[in-house]
C-alpha cells in the first residue's frame, strides 16, 4: 500500500488548514454561500435535504485497518453511527455539521486520508479494480498508476474549474471490474513488447446522456502519461460546453465534434507540451510501485476448504473469488443485507471489517464500485473463521452479483436532486427475490432516483430509473446494460410503474428469463440473444 512521505503529509495538512480558514470566513460572513460552494464542494461537502454530507476519498478504493477504523470513529463521533460506501469507492456521511467538517478532515489527515476533490468540477477520486494486486488476470497492479494520477490531479492548477466533474478509472485486466468505459477517461494497462503502457478511452459516462468511452490512444507509455492526459484535459477545458450544465461533460464534446477531431486536437496539444518536463521521471512510478509489492504470501497455505457447513458453502461459492496465490482467496463482504440500505455500514461493522483485515487479511481492505467491501488477501484456511465473524455481525449475505446485490443512489430519502426514492425500492426487491436469487444467477440490478444516474441504472442488467410523474414517484425499467468488459447501455422497456408495479414487472422479466434461458446463460446473455420483445410481452401482456 502507498504510504505518505513528508511531502504528501504536508500537502494534506495544508489542506486542512486552508479549509478551516474557508469555513471560518463563511461562518463569519466574509464569504457568500455562492462563493463558498465551489470551495466546500472541492472538499466533498454537499448541502443535502436535511444536513451537510461529507464525502471522504478512498483513493482507488484501497484502505488499511487503521484507516477503516478511522471511518468508523467518524461515523460514531460526528454522524449517526453509520457511513455509506459509494460507487466511486468512497464513503459519505449524511449528517455532518459544517462547523465539525475541519475537525473531521484533521482527524482523517492523521491516517493519511482526506476529502480532496470528492466533488466539484475537477478531477475526482481515481477509481480502480477492487481485486488489484490479488487478481490472477491482471498484467500489473493498476494502483501505482492510480496513485501517480492522484498526485498529478491533486490541486491541479489548470483543471480545477473544468466545465464539469471529471472521473478517471484505471484497470489492468481484460475483465473490467471498475466500469472503466463509463468514465470520462478510462485507462487500461497492457503490455506491449515487454513494456507496460496504457490504452486511453475518453468520453464515457452515465448521467442523463449515457455514452461508452471511445478509444483515443492505442498505447502510451508511463513516461508520457501525464503530458498526454494534460492534453486530453486541456482540449476539454478549452472547448467543453459551459453554456448548459447538462451538456458540459467531455462525452458531449466528443459526441459533438467527433472522436477523430477530438483525437487530432489532443495530438496537436500533446505535441506542444510533451517535452516541457510535465512528466515525472519513471523513478517516481518505480518508487510508488515498490510500495504496492504486496504482502509475502505463505507458499504452503493449504488449498482445500472444508465445505461441510452448508451455509458457509453457499457464501463460499457466491462471495469468494480466486486469488493469484495458491492457498489464498479474495473475499467480498456484501453490504446488501436483504431489507437493508445498499452500501451502508454501522460503525461497529466498519470496526469488525477492520479487525478481520488486520487479523486475517494482510491489513488490507477495498471498497468496490458496487458498494461492497473486499478483503483481497486471505488464507483459505481462515475463510470459515472470517465467515463466522461476518455472520455474527450481519455481514455474511451470500449475494455477490445476484439480484439483491443492488447499487442504489441515496434517492429522495437524502438527495436534493432526486425525483424518487431508491432505498425502499431496493429493500422491496431484495425481499421479493431473496428466496430465488441463486436460481436466477448473476443479475446486476441498479437503481437511480433521478436521471443523473448516480445509481448506474444505464449499466444494470436490469436498471431502474425513478422519475417524477405529475407529483408521484414513478419507475422506468431498463434491460440489457452492463458496466463490465462487455459494456452496453440498457434500453427502456416501455411505460413506467409505481413502486410495487416495478417489482412485479421485474418478477415477470425474471420468470420469462427462466423459461427462455439455455444452458448456463446469464440473464444478460439471454436478453442479448432474444432481444427486448419477449420481455416486453411478459411485462405488458
Amino acid at each position: 500500500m502507498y504510504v505518505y512521505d513528508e511531502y504528501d503529509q504536508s500537502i494534506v495538512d495544508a489542506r486542512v488548514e486552508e479549509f478551516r480558514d474557508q469555513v471560518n470566513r463563511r461562518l463569519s460572513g466574509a464569504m457568500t454561500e455562492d462563493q463558498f460552494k465551489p470551495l466546500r464542494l472541492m472538499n466533498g461537502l454537499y448541502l443535502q435535504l436535511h444536513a451537510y454530507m461529507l464525502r471522504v476519498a478512498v483513493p482507488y478504493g484501497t484502505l488499511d485497518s487503521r484507516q477503516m477504523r478511522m471511518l468508523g470513529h467518524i461515523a460514531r463521533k460526528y454522524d449517526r453511527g453509520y457511513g455509506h460506501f459509494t460507487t466511486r469507492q468512497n464513503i459519505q456521511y449524511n449528517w455532518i455539521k459544517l462547523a465539525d467538517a475541519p475537525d473531521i478532515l484533521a482527524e482523517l489527515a492523521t491516517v493519511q486520508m482526506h476529502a480532496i476533490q470528492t466533488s466539484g468540477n475537477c478531477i475526482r477520486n481515481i477509481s480502480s479494480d477492487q481485486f488489484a494486486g490479488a487478481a490472477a488476470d491482471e498484467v500489473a497492479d493498476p494502483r501505482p498508476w492510480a496513485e501517480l494520477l492522484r498526485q498529478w490531479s491533486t490541486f491541479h492548477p489548470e483543471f480545477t474549474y473544468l466545465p464539469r466533474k471529471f472521473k478517471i478509472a484505471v484497470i489492468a485486466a481484460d475483465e473490467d471490474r471498475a466500469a472503466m468505459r463509463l468514465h470520462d477517461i478510462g485507462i487500461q494497462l497492457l503490455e506491449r513488447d515487454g513494456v507496460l503502457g496504457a490504452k486511453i478511452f475518453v468520453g464515457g459516462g452515465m448521467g442523463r446522456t449515457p455514452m461508452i468511452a471511445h478509444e483515443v490512444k492505442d498505447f502510451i507509455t508511463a513516461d508520457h502519461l501525464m503530458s498526454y492526459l494534460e492534453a486530453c484535459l486541456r482540449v476539454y477545458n478549452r472547448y467543453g460546453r459551459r453554456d448548459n450544465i447538462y451538456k458540459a461533460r467531455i462525452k458531449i464534446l466528443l459526441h459533438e465534434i467527433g472522436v477523430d477531431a477530438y483525437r487530432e486536437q489532443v495530438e496537436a496539444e500533446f505535441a506542444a507540451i510533451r517535452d516541457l518536463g510535465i512528466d515525472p521521471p519513471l523513478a517516481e512510478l518505480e518508487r510508488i510501485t515498490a510500495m504496492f509489492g504486496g504482502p509475502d504470501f505463505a507458499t504452503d497455505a493449504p488449498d482445500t476448504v472444508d465445505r461441510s457447513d452448508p451455509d458457509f458453502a453457499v457464501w463460499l461459492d457466491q462471495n469468494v473469488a480466486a486469488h493469484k496465490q495458491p492457498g489464498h482467496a479474495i473475499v467480498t463482504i456484501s453490504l446488501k443485507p436483504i431489507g437493508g440500505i445498499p452500501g451502508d455500514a454501522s460503525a461497529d461493522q466498519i470496526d469488525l471489517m477492520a479487525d478481520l483485515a488486520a487479523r486475517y487479511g494482510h491489513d488490507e481492505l477495498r471498497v468496490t464500485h458496487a458498494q461492497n467491501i473486499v478483503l483481497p488477501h486471505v488464507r483459505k484456511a481462515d475463510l470459515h473463521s472470517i465467515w463466522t465473524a461476518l455472520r455474527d455481525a450481519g455481514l455474511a449475505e451470500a449475494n455477490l452479483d445476484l439480484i439483491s446485490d443492488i447499487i442504489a443512489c441515496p434517492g429522495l430519502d437524502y438527495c436534493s436532486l432526486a425525483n424518487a426514492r431508491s432505498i425502499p425500492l431496493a429493500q422491496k426487491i431484495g425481499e421479493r427475490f431473496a428466496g430465488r436469487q441463486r436460481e436466477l444467477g448473476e443479475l446486476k440490478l441498479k437503481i437511480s432516483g433521478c436521471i443523473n444516474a448516480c445509481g448506474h441504472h444505464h449499466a444494470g442488467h436490469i436498471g431502474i430509473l425513478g422519475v417524477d410523474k405529475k407529483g408521484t414517484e414513478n419507475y422506468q425499467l431498463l434491460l440489457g446494460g452492463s458496466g463490465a468488459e462487455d459494456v452496453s447501455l440498457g434500453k427502456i422497456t416501455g411505460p413506467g410503474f409505481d413502486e410495487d408495479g416495478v417489482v412485479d414487472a421485474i418478477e415477470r422479466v425474471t420468470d420469462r428469463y427462466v423459461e427462455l434461458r439455455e444452458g448456463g446463460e446469464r440473464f444478460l446473455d439471454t436478453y442479448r440473444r432474444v432481444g427486448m420483445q419477449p420481455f416486453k410481452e411478459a411485462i405488458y401482456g
Partner: protein
Amino acid sequence: MVDPITVNTNAGETLLRFRDDVVHDEPAVTLDAFLGQTNATAVRLEAGDDARELLDHLGQIALVEISFPTFRDGRGYSAARILREAGFEGELRAAGDVLVDQIPHMRRCGFDSFAPEKPIDGPTLTKLLALYPQPYQKAADARVPVWKLRHG
C-alpha cells in the same frame, strides 16, 4: 515575488501585480482588433478566445489580459499556460470575477497581475499563497514539484 504590489491605474482600476516593472499604459484591444492591425501591444482575450492565435506575435505584446466572466469559468487557466509555455514573458493579467481562493492556482498557471472586480483581502491572499509548501505537478511557475524534490 511573494507579495503583490498594489497599483491604482489611470483608468481607476486597482491592480495586484507580482512584477515590478512599470504598468503598461496602452489599453488592451480585443483579439480581433489586435489581429487586424500591426502595432498594438496589449490584448484582451475573452474566455472563449484562442490564445494560440497570439503565438506568432508574442514578441510585440507587453500585456495580455484574460477575462474571467465568472470564477467558475476555467478556460483562462489554459490560455495562460499556453502563452507561458510558448515563452511569453510580458504581463499576464486575470481580469473580472477573480476571487482570493483562485489566485494561487492562477499564479501557478502564469498570471502575474490581477484586476479583480471586488477588492481582495491582502492578509488572506498572503496566507493562501504561502499555504502549500510544494505542489504535486509542474506548471507555468517556478515552483518545484514534489517528484522533482524526491528524485532530483
